[in-house]
Each structure stands twice: as C-alpha cells, then as structure tokens.
C-alpha cells in the first residue's frame, strides 16, 4: 500500500575469509541480471573490497567511500556499469578501513539510500568476520545468507556468525535492561548461568518472564538465515548442509534454510586469473551450475532438497 516496489536485499556473509563470497555474489548477480532483472551489487567488505576484480573490472573511480564522506551526494552516482546488461556495481570503499567504523548516522544514511534504490535486487557482499557493521547489514536484508566451506575452521565460524547475528537481533528488539545484560552474559561462553546457545538464552528468559520469553521466541522464529556450502568436493560435503541445519534447529534454536552447494572447480581460479567471471567464461561448469541453482532457490524462496 505504501511502497509498491518489489525490491529485495540479499546479503552474503560468512565467518571466514577467502572462501569465495565475492565470486558467488558476482555470479548470482550476473545470473539474475541475465534473467532480465535489474540488479546492483554492493561491496561492503571493509577489509578487502575486490568484487570489481571478480567481475573483471578495473578499480572504479567512484566508490562507497565517496558517498559516505559526502563527496558525492547521491548513491546512484557511485553505481558503476559492468560488462553485463541490468547489472550495476557499487564498489567497496578503498579507504574504508581507515575510517573502519562509519559513524552510526553515516551507516543509517547508507542503509536508507540502499533500501530506496530503484532496482529489483540488491546483493551485498559483506566480507568476512562478525563485526557489528557486518551483522547490521546482514540483519536488515530480506535474505541473510551465510556461506561456508566444508572445513572445521569455517564450520566453527559459521556458528559464531549465526550466534552473533542472533544475539544482535534480539538485543535490538528488547528494551529491557535485564535482558540486554543476559545477552551480554550469553556472549561470554564461560558465563555462570550456563547459557551456551540462543536456545538456552530464550529458555532462561522464559523462566524469568513468561510473556517476554514468548516474544523473544517468536523473534527467534522469524530469524531465518540461509546457508550455502561452497567448494564441495564429495557427497559428504553436500550432506554437511543438512547436518548444520539440524544442529542449528535442535541445539542452537535457530531455523536455518539450506539453499544448496557449489562444487569446487578448477575453472574458477582459471577465470579469476583471466579476470573474468566463471559464469560468463564457463557457464556450464560445475561451479557455475551450482551458483545458478542457489540463486534460483533464493528467487523461488525454496530450499535445497536431495
């Protein structure tokens, strides 16, 4: 009734760096643009913005930094053209790291402008880590996607990311000091109350105050992050997605949707070397097919099934 735009924001993050997030963001963007939708990719990676390289573009002249520092007034002015129709790129701030934490007001302004872009899909490349900036972008998106690779380090960081995002979300919806303190407590893994997981936290709050507990468990239920597994080498790696989903719902109390997997594929680094995206260079390769599958599942709002 108020807004008629069917715009959607997707945000791709992940606890660990170098697992191919930018590559997948680029691939999904190209794929959806090829389907005739208007897409903009935004690189909000604080540390190492390199989405442009994944798309085979030189270092852009204007970046997010120019917008944040108000050298450019309109966000539209920092959108660069790419080699594909319908696909735009907002490049990551090169000096963002120096300004590491944009001020709250700057962040709000950026978020508002991002949300009002006149396009079909906005895909954010969040970069790795669990800083508040990353979590906030993750939480404002319609689809918060987390990516991992089948390695212990990455799995561990995935849980850390999910917990961090969950607590931050709960923290934002509650104004009660006791609850906020409890959340702070929960962030410390060796806390005295024995709160180890979001589920423990919600149960603990329920014990303190039934009504509040129910509000929070509804909030918990609405938090539905998505999972992608990248660099899959064998069938067992595909199954890992189901296992992580199971642990999230049973143990952590987080409802996770498993979107699908992308095969490890030599053609990816071959095309990176050539500064071209594999989805354009090798559209039928295993990796490209995986990226398309994941993007399609997101478009249709469904999960991966065996």
């Amino acid at each position, binding site marked *: *009734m108020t807004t008629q735009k069917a715009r959607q924001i997707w945000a791709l993050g992940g606890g660990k760096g170098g697992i191919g997030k930018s590559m997948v963001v680029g691939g999904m963007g190209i794929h959806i643009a090829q389907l005739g939708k208007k897409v903009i990719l935004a690189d909000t990676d604080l540390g190492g913005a390199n989405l442009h390289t994944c798309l085979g573009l030189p270092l852009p002249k204007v970046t997010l930094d120019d917008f944040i520092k108000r050298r450019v007034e309109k966000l539209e002015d920092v959108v660069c053209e790419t080699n594909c129709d319908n696909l735009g790129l907002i490049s990551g701030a090169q000096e963002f790291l120096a300004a590491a934490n944009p001020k709250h007001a700057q962040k709000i302004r950026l978020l508002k402008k991002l949300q009002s872009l006149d396009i079909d899909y906005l895909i954010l490349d969040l970069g790795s880590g669990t800083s508040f900036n990353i979590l906030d972008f993750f939480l404002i998106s319609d689809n918060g996607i987390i990516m991992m690779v*089948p*390695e*212990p380090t990455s*799995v*561990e960081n995935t*849980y850390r990311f999910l917990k961090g995002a969950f607590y931050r979300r709960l923290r934002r919806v509650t104004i009660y000091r006791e609850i906020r303190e409890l959340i702070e407590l929960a962030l410390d893994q060796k806390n005295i109350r024995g709160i*180890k*997981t979001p*589920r*423990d936290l919600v*149960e603990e709050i329920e014990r303190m105050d039934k009504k509040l507990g*129910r509000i929070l468990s*509804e909030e918990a*239920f*609405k938090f*539905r992050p998505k999972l992608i597994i990248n660099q899959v080498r064998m069938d067992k790696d595909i*199954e*890992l997605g*189901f*296992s*992580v989903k*199971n*642990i999230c*719902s*049973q*143990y*952590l109390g987080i409802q996770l949707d498993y979107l699908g997997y992308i095969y490890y594929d030599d053609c990816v680094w071959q095309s990176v070397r050539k500064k071209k995206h594999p989805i354009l260079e090798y559209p039928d390769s295993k990796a490209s097919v995986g990226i398309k599958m994941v993007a399609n599942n997101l478009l249709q709002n469904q999960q991966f099934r*065996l």
Partner: protein
Amino acid sequence: MEKFLQRNYYQILDVDFRASKIQIKRAFEIAKETYGSDSLAAHSIMSPEKGRRFLSKIMEAYRILIDDDSRRLYDQYLVKTSQEFVGSSEVGLETASPNGQLLPDDTPPSKDPLPPFVRASQLSGTGAEKKTEGDDTLAKEGRYDGPELRRIREEKGIGIRTIAEKTKINITTLKFIEENNFKLLPAPFYVKNFLVQYCRCIELDPEKVTESYMKFYALYKEGKKLFK
C-alpha cells in the same frame, strides 16, 4: 539442552507428524551423521559427550517411530498426555489420564461422535460420512477455528496477501490455517507460531486464539484415529 530430552520423538528427529517411513529414515541418517563422533558439523559446537547423549535419544526416537505399531501407540500417548493440545474437554473429548504411560493396545476407542469441525473430507481415505449437527457459529464464546478467523479477517478488510507479506508466512499455509486443513498443516509448534503472527495482523488476542485453534487441531488428530 535439558529441554531436548523432554521434546517429543518427532521433534527430536526433526520430522513432521505426518512423516513417511522414508522421511523418518532419512532424518535418522542425517541425525546419525550429524552427531556421530567424527562429525564435521558438531565438532566445534558441542562436546563429544553431549553428542552421544543426543545420539542415544535419537536412536530411541527412531526405534519407536519406524515401527507402525509402536508409532501408533506413541501417537495416542502424545495426544492423550499433551496438556497444551487438550485443555478443558467441553467439546466431547474424553478426559485422558495424563499419567504419561504408554497405553495398552486394547484401549477401547472413544465412541463420541466427531466434533462438527472435523469434516469428513479431511479424513482422507476413510469414507466416513458421519453427519454432524449444530455446525453453526463457533466463535460465540471465544472459539476460533479457521473459517472463523477468515471471517474476522475479512470483516476487518485485511487481505490474506497483506498478512503473508507482513509475516513472511507462505500464503498457502495461511490458507490451510483458514480452511482448517489440519492434514496439510505443519507440526503444532509451527502452527502456533504462525497463529500468533496472524493474530497480530488482525488484532486478535494471540493467546485465546491459539488455545482454541490448537484444540481443534488436537481433536482432528484424535478424530482421525477413531476412524482407523
């Protein structure tokens, strides 16, 4: 964690109440893989000892649910003991003994007629044609079923699409709720959550509505068994 051990077998296996044998088997395989000793998914998040406790509970759940007879008994037990489904028994449900024991096989089936809102068409494959009486307004004293919710929603001029957008609940699921299509609805836990969000949108008291609606849901399950 403690609550995990109190959850029912369907929740433990992470399957729906209507899950087929194949689905149960598949869920069990995933769970075995997930909580096994060399699991990549579990290693950084839970201690091996905790994993073993999960696993033994999962085995127990699987053994009960994979066998038709024990599953039927367990279902009966769930319906009879579950306090949240069966509140006061004003709609003709026999009060169950909530002592939490598996019921013997020869429990005499209740002879009560089906409550009016369990429509014959929803009891698939039974060919039951029990006529129902007095199937008028339900919502008189705060009794909410699907069609009643729909009536209220329409009265307030709120489109189902609006609710779907606001709550992010699938529109088909919302329709199932409004159609009393219990057969196709997910497990009670989810339905309850959906109802609360639904109520928010049409400004009804979530507590009253869920209590009433979940009673109908429970009665449907009970009624289905009467036909078996």
